[in-house]
């Protein structure tokens, strides 16, 4: 990268080790999970010890990006991340991944956009820019064709 052209803003996760930030435009983010080598159970986030059979041999895998909405709410108290006191509200939900884990996350959309059982997909949201880097968090949004 030449020093004369302004570099594209680098995206970093709010915490490392939970999700991928795809380089290719349009590629979905994935969740970083584990699969037990002994019993095959899947986990999010990653684990060292299998919570089902207690084996200590697990492999890193990527989970998602799609799942089914198990439950949700819409929070009217303005608190989101460390510097998001300006938002009016936000959705929170639990999404069942086909591999087994139920993932709790912020939802993208308005108070009337969700229903239990709908298809959801992972996306990234920019929380803020810090030292020239864009701090990203994962969230789920309703799958578009499901809404039509």
């Amino acid at each position, binding site marked *: 990268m030449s020093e004369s052209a302004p570099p594209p803003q680098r995206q970093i*996760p*709010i*915490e490392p080790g*939970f999700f991928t930030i795809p380089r290719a435009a349009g590629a979905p983010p994935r969740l970083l999970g584990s699969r037990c080598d002994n019993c095959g*159970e899947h*986990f*999010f*986030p990653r684990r060292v010890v299998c*919570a*089902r059979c207690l084996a200590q041999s697990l492999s890193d895998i990527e989970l998602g990006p799609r799942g089914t909405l*198990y*439950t*949700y*709410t*819409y*929070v*009217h*108290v303005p*608190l*989101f*991340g*460390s510097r*998001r006191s300006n938002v009016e509200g*936000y959705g*929170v*939900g*639990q999404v*069942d991944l086909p591999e*087994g*884990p*139920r*993932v*709790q*996350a*912020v939802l993208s959309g308005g*108070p009337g956009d969700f229903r*239990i059982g709908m298809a959801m997909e992972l996306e990234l949201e920019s929380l803020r820019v810090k030292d020239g880097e864009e701090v990203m*968090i*994962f969230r789920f949004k309703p799958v578009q064709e499901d809404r039509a």
Partner: protein
Amino acid sequence: MKLDNVAVIGVGMVRFGTHRERTVIDLAREAGLIAMRDAGVVLSDIDESWVGFMDGAPMLAPRVMKEFGLTGLPVNHVESASATGLVAFREAAHAVSSGRCQVAMALGFEKMTEMIARGRAGRGVGRDSVDSVILPAAYFALWAMRRMHERGTKPEHFAAIAAKNWNHGALNPYADRQADHTVTVAEVLASPMIAVPLTAMMACPVDDGAACAILATPEIAARLQPGRPVVRVLASALQSERYATGHTFLGPVVGPATMTRDTAGQAYEEAGIGPDDIDLALVHDAFANEEIEYYELLGFCREGEGEKLVEQGATSLGGRIPFNTDGGLIARGHPGGPTGLAQIHELVTQLRGDAGARQVANARTGLAQLVGGGSVCTVSLLQRG
């Protein structure tokens, strides 16, 4: 482990609320001295203490205990989030039952208003983390929305539970919230929405407070307080989460809800009694929808019949099985550290027959349940005689 030969010989608390002018040590000293007077003991009679608080400097437990005297007794710090006070109680009960102590103290205190002001309340994982964004209210709202989907529960059911607990609190001089009028379902529903379907009046307040219980063998109880009914501790169980496929590791404050069924099952088995033997129950109603789940998980009705109990008023004072007779977390308040010991205070007051306007007729056996973030569930069973 089965409990044997343990009684609560003294209780004390300060009214929960905002105590701006008093330090947490002031609150703890007052609750402890009331409990010791109620028991008829001084510090030299107490063999060991369990001190419960969530937010405090290192060394705070022995420093607080010095307010009562300096006798060399062992002092332990207990922290288990919302369940802290009831977990401290469990430790004291098992210490007496095992013979390690003859007299034990469980003391809990907190200034939650200061925790909130310093931004220290919450998950303990720092604010800049993947799961710092989700409020406790949101998590319990997720339970509520799922229940509404599965059972057809209405926001009116949750509001009726909240109104009941507000109205119970008005009868309790130790309650933070003492409404000057009968709180209605409509009023609860009309209060500001926090997290759909939970409104502000369905949630517990932010409180300061302190509470204390003194435990000993029933023989000591009879010697110190001849003629007063002896309140025994039949069981005190504590469990943490059990894994099942679909477990949500990141985000939830408390869960899964089935912890309450497992923990209560253990307590009932150890005590040799069941839900039919219980005359009143105090539970973790930080949010009103939790209480309907606990009706079922504690065995007071079949799964899916919690709404019927609400509609029948069965869990109000005067009903079949009164819940949260002191107002619960919603009205009595929920400072954190002392909450479980306020439940013990209420059970002992009821089982002695000293609860005045909110007395449950012929109350003989009571249950206290709390969940605590992380998470844990604890259930204690107390019985007169």
